């Protein structure tokens, strides 16, 4: 198929990755990036907003061609859709109340790398286990963080799954849970808002292969040609620093994937 125009779907409600402006137009890191990628591929890009719940079925039904919605590349998802090379890989961390008992959690302000290899990760995990014993941790359900938390903390802490990230923040503020675990880019922008003024990141920022490959664009499995076009464009954009530039603009930190195999 000869791709002249490509329709890209995003939620439009996940600032700063993608968001809606009051005039109804879309904006955000992924919009800027997609515009740049389309320029490179010499195709015309159209954006549409799509609710998270209908995202993958709509892609497969043919309503649009690409998903760029902070979609983590996972093996489960690979069974139903195809992914491009990742264009971002984000660190994750715990967040709690400034006045809470975990505010002094060791390692706050540092960055650690976890590989998913138990032996390598043990020292970091053990420290966290000690601190989180008997606490309640909130996470967004069906994310790459679920497995990490279930594997390492389920036996000593209560894990509560929320539909959206905003809800675990609200429950931290309300005092129903002790910490939330999520994407750093999300926390950075969430903490800038008055509702979350009492919250802060506690403990180390966690990066590394444990979170998988990172976030990539999603395609119908049949559209391998389109996927390859995107992968190439992403590789170029990473190489010439465009991704880094946009990342700093939107996230105030660099989320460029470290290793591009």
């Amino acid at each position, binding site marked *: 198929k000869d791709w002249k125009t490509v329709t890209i779907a995003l939620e439009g409600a996940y600032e700063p990755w993608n968001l809606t402006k009051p005039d109804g137009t879309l904006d955000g890191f992924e919009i800027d990036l997609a515009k740049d990628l389309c320029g490179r591929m010499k195709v015309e890009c159209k954006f549409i907003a799509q609710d998270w719940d209908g995202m993958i079925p709509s892609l497969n039904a043919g309503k649009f061609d690409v998903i760029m919605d902070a979609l983590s590349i996972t093996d489960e998802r690979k069974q139903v859709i195809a992914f491009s090379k990742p264009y971002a890989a984000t660190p994750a961390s715990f967040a709690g109340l400034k006045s809470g008992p975990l505010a002094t959690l060791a390692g706050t302000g540092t960055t650690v790398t976890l590989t998913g290899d138990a032996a390598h990760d043990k020292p970091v995990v053990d420290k966290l286990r000690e601190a989180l014993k008997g606490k309640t941790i909130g996470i967004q359900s069906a994310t790459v963080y679920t497995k990490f938390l279930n594997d390492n903390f389920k036996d000593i802490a209560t894990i509560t799954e*929320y539909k959206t990230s905003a809800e675990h923040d609200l429950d931290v503020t309300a*005092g129903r849970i002790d910490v939330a675990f999520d994407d750093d880019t999300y926390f950075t922008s969430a903490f800038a808002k008055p509702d979350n003024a009492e919250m802060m990141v506690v403990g180390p920022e966690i990066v590394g292969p444990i979170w998988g490959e990172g976030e990539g664009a999603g395609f119908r499995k049949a559209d391998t040609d389109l996927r390859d076009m995107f992968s190439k464009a992403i590789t170029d954009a990473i190489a010439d620093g465009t991704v880094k530039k946009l990342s700093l603009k939107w996230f105030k930190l660099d989320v460029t994937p470290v290793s591009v195999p």
Partner: protein
Amino acid sequence: MISSFSWTDTFFQLLAALPNTLLLFILSISIGCIMALGIVWMRMSRNRLLSGFARGYIFVFRGTPLLIQMFLLFYGLGQFRFLHDTPAWWVLSSRFATAVLALALCTAGYSAEIFRGGLLAVPSREIEAGRAIGMSGFLLLRRIVAPIALRQALPAYSTEIVLMVKSTSLASLVAVAEITGVAAKIAHTYYSSIGVFLLAGAFYLVINFIIIRIVGLLEYRLSPHLRLMPARAQTPRTIVG
């Protein structure tokens, strides 16, 4: 290791969430029904303060999506720190109790309107006959108005009951693990949404099918006077009430 999708696993995970769904439903519908009776009483009262309050209540709870009500009740009230020291926190600190409360508050508004519709359909002649022998207030309500009104309101109320079964799915918003929440989690993990949701839908359909049957039976029992005379049994076995 890739954990792969399996229908049997999905089925059993949904089944495990069934008790939560049923409990949410039963508690909220019973509490909501009792509240609705109080509200409809106030609504029909001649006291302006009472009827004004009831109107306001019905207006707010019928007028906004349950999703928003639940969100504000659970997360909104939670933000007020001073509530943590009051007995209200006893309810608000529990996800389950808050979900039941939100569901009950909402259904009370709807049910009150339904009951009022039933009351309006009671023939005035029969009410007069009750007044004429000195019935009034609660007695008149219990013996004459309520039985007839119940019969009239039952079709609409069965709808409300069935809606409540489905509304329990919103409890996933406050992280109570009921059927829809579990289904959404599975669906988002394995990305086969429609299939998983259809299976979850089948659970609701079965519950609702049973409920609709029961209400239908009740309706039939309550309306012998509207039916043609059956060929057998001209005399009811018992004299009710």
